[in-house]
């Protein structure tokens, strides 16, 4: 019996899909997620200030993604629904990053196997706990595999190179300014220019904030933090013993992001 015309072995199909997805992701810019003393900071190189790569999912849970915008946006919206309905049905404390990561894993896995075109995305789901030990960072790839990361994670275009630079700079218990510097350095090619502030999307999950821990850092505040964290300045030691006050939200009329160019997720 001969093979039917046009038959492609399953291995080949999966390989092709994985290659396709990897290529798609490699065209975009990178993002990093890392722990600092008061929580978790997300730093993304994003030319658009209107289309976010970083977002709030729930009280303690944040989301970061790279790749094709419409695909990770669908995942983000689905995740928000999942979190809100579970928090509403049960209790707000019952919404966990692990549950959300499982949901994403199942669906990314299903999409990878069943549809012709896999999602060209990589996402991170992070949850801030009451202490650094309770923080959780999950990284999910286009085929639905989940990795439980410790301390930091890089994804996107040149993920490997970015991860190496991130590992070099990272240490436990950094202040926010230092963590920002490490993140921005990791996103900067050696000898290249750091992404301008207007192209940095930054947000934190600050464990000391009440109600919702997620906070976007934009505008003057971000510039201030970046200036403080500039490599030229000596890294200041935070005062021992005292907890840093939680970051305050910018005010009711502060836009979550200024308007700007649209990043299609396809690089420049």
């Amino acid at each position: 019996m001969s093979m039917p015309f046009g038959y492609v072995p399953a291995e080949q199909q999966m390989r092709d899909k994985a290659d396709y997805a990897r290529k798609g992701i490699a065209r975009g810019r990178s993002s990093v997620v890392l722990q600092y003393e008061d929580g978790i900071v997300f730093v993304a190189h994003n030319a658009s200030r209107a289309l976010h790569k970083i977002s709030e999912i729930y009280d303690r849970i944040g989301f970061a993604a790279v790749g094709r915008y419409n695909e990770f946006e669908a995942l983000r919206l689905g995740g928000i629904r999942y979190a809100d309905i579970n928090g509403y049905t049960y209790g707000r404390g019952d919404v966990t990053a692990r549950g959300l990561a499982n949901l994403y894993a199942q669906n990314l896995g299903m999409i990878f196997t069943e549809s012709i075109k896999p999602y060209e995305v990589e996402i991170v789901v992070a949850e801030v706990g009451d202490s650094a030990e309770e923080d959780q960072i999950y990284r999910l790839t286009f085929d639905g595999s989940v990795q439980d990361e410790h301390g930091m994670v890089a994804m996107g275009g040149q993920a490997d190179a970015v991860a190496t630079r991130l590992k070099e700079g990272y240490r436990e218990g950094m202040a926010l300014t230092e963590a920002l510097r490490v993140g921005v350095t990791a996103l900067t090619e050696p000898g290249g220019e750091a992404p301008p502030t207007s192209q940095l999307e930054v947000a934190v999950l600050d464990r000391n904030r009440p109600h919702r821990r997620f906070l976007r850092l934009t505008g003057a505040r971000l510039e201030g933090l970046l200036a403080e964290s500039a490599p030229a300045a000596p890294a200041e030691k935070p005062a021992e013993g005292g907890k840093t006050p939680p970051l305050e939200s910018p005010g009711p009329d502060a836009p979550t992001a200024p308007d700007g160019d649209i990043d299609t997720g396809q690089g420049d």
Partner: protein
Amino acid sequence: MASHRDLPAGFADNMFLNTGSSSFIEFVGSYAPDLLPGRRPALARAVGDEVPHATTIVAATCAGGVVMAGDRRSTSGNMISQRDIEKVFRTDDYSCMGIAGTASTGLEMAKLYRVELEHYEKREGRTLSVEGKANRLATMIRDNLPMAMQGLAVVPLFAAYDPDAAHGRIFGYDVAGGPYEHHGYNAIGSGSIFAKGSLKKLYRPDASPEDMALTCIQALYDAADDDSATGGPDVARRIWPVVAVITADGFHRLPDEEVEGHVRTMLDARMTAPDGPTAPLR
């Protein structure tokens, strides 16, 4: 059992990914309608005083914001069902709502409304306008009309800081919806008639948030004085009214110690003048 419990982690029927509207309520309505307060089967007979009722809430604008306060009593007929219930809820960073009427439905509605506002904010990346928030609440109250006709009525009072106008705003409702914007002050619940009478004489449009908190506490005391369903401050158990202040700095619930200070100031003065402060005649 709700349909969503049967789904494997969720996306099987594309429910979470079918990203239609930014309204959480619309989503719940199609996904697990039995979770919504207003969409339950009709009751065999109307409910009366058997279920606990929440009582008086007052709200008043002040310099740069708005103050809302609620007493701590819920009643079932002539019984006091709870003496430390909380009826003023933070709904987002710049708004809050108080409930009067059926306590359980009110609590549920406050919880749902908070998720509704947050859901929109997370999905759209912007907060709703104050009108948008007030209208949304009106729809929820209107959806509850069939239940209200069966005795499970809820009437909220909504207060928010409007960043565009830079002042506080107050919206009232009836069982069929609303919203009705109230300038200055308003009160809801069984003791509202007395509270409004009190506020009418004590309200000063440009009072500081601290003074307005005291004014609201005075109004609640006057309501408790004449309405059996409204609870006065419980000095022995240290149960004080819930007082929330919303300004440009966001929602802030006054800590118990601060409310206690206001209450004691008021009680001291009432030892000599039991009817409270008097307004000048001319």
